[in-house]
């Protein structure tokens, strides 16, 4: 008896984190419009879609107009990030390019690596051999386990998809990556970016009822009554005029 009383708070403390996790059951369809990151010379566009089901996600990534070469792609999220894509103003060191680090205040660190095989954690952020490559990429992957906090953030419109890998044809081609000094900057600099925003909630209010029937019926009834009254008053007028 005494022992169980003592153990109760401990059991509660152990259970609480799980209660918290269980209640954060995020569900939702999100979509990101991938647009060129300023300064980096990409002219492509694309679509990323993420379906959140609790702590797993299904994702589809499509982009075209990219530079040849591998394209690392991630969902970025940081609790203290702005959940945005970087603007040209993010070029803090004025080297005329937005490096992946330049964009971190806007989109946060890597939360999920959108790899085609194997691990999808931030540890695979630069696993270029497991990402797609080429000017056009299109692939989908289901059942990817993510941190529940990330799933929740994505369903709330706070995840940002970034596709990396650009082509520099000026002195920037010699710059080295801020993420891995053994790689050229063009391999890791962001090409396209888009915020995963939640689909509109529920249906659409696209009608005012004018063709639904009752308005026409009401007008017909009123008009009919008016005509009957007009016709009905004719004998009265006739009698008066004759009288």
């Amino acid at each position, binding site marked *: 008896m005494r022992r169980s009383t003592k153990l109760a708070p401990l059991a509660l403390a152990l259970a609480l984190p799980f209660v918290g996790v*269980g209640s954060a*059951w995020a569900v939702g369809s999100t979509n990101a419009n991938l647009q060129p990151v300023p300064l980096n010379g990409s002219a492509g566009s694309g*679509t990323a879609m993420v*379906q959140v089901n609790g702590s797993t996600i299904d994702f589809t990534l499509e982009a075209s107009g990219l530079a040849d070469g591998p394209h690392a792609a991630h969902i970025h999220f940081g609790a203290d990030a702005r959940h945005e894509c970087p603007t040209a103003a993010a070029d803090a060191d004025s080297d005329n390019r937005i490096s992946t680090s330049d964009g971190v205040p806007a989109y946060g660190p890597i939360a999920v690596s959108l790899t085609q095989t194997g691990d999808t954690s931030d540890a695979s952020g630069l696993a270029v051999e497991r990402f797609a490559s080429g000017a056009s990429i299109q692939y*989908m992957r289901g059942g990817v386990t993510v941190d529940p906090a990330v799933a929740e953030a994505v369903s709330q419109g706070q995840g940002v998809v970034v596709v990396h890998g650009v082509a520099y044809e000026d002195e920037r081609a010699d710059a080295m990556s801020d993420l891995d000094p053994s790689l050229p900057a063009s391999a890791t600099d962001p090409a396209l970016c888009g915020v995963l925003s939640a689909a*509109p909630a529920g249906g659409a209010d696209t009608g005012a009822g004018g063709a639904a029937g009752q308005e026409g019926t009401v007008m017909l009834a*009123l*008009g009919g009554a008016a005509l009957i*009254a007009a016709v009905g*008053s004719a004998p009265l007028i006739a009698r008066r005029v004759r009288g």
Partner: protein
Amino acid sequence: MVVDSDRRGRRGTLAVAATAVVLAVGGVVAVGVGLQQATAGPPPAPPVSAPSTPPTPAPPAVASVAPAPDHAAAAQELSAKTMPRSRPVSLTIPAMGIVDSSLVDLGKEADGTLEVPTDYGQAGWFEPGPAPGQFGPAVIAGHVDSKAGPAIFYRLGELQPGATLSVTREDGSTAEFVVDKVERYPKDAFPTAAVYGDTTQRSELRLITCGGEFDSGTGHYVDNVVAYAHLV
């Protein structure tokens, strides 16, 4: 006295006659408007569709399993026809009598619902989503009717699978689509994932309007009609 009463009588006759004329004219106008609205009839709508997506899975009672190492199957490569992003400018749906109708941009309202066009004669594109021709489901919404009568998407419910439609885009290109199906859903069971989510892995278009019963209490229809089409 006789003169007075005679005058009063004549004035009365004039008043009755004037009222009769007003009633007659008003009546004819009202019947005309009423007939126009009544002959338009309620908008065509397909039968209500059974939920096409399984209900949301229930959350696990206790998330006692720690995040497992990722055992997700390998990705599936896709090869859908796509067009780069470009703002849609106008919409043509021959089967609905819509020719080169200009489009407005739509976003989301503060409560998260889809913004709808203010002009009943104009459809709108959900700008945060894909552009028509881009990979994923592009969404165009239009009213079925105004308070006065039919609006731009009045005939959406009678669109048949196989019908063609096209969207002219700002870059000068035209995205051509073929209708796959037209569904009707109660708004309180709207299949968001099927309409806005990635369910077919290709470039698609969704046309959305209202349908079903009109609830004069809320001032809204109870259902939505959604036409699904894909890029060809």
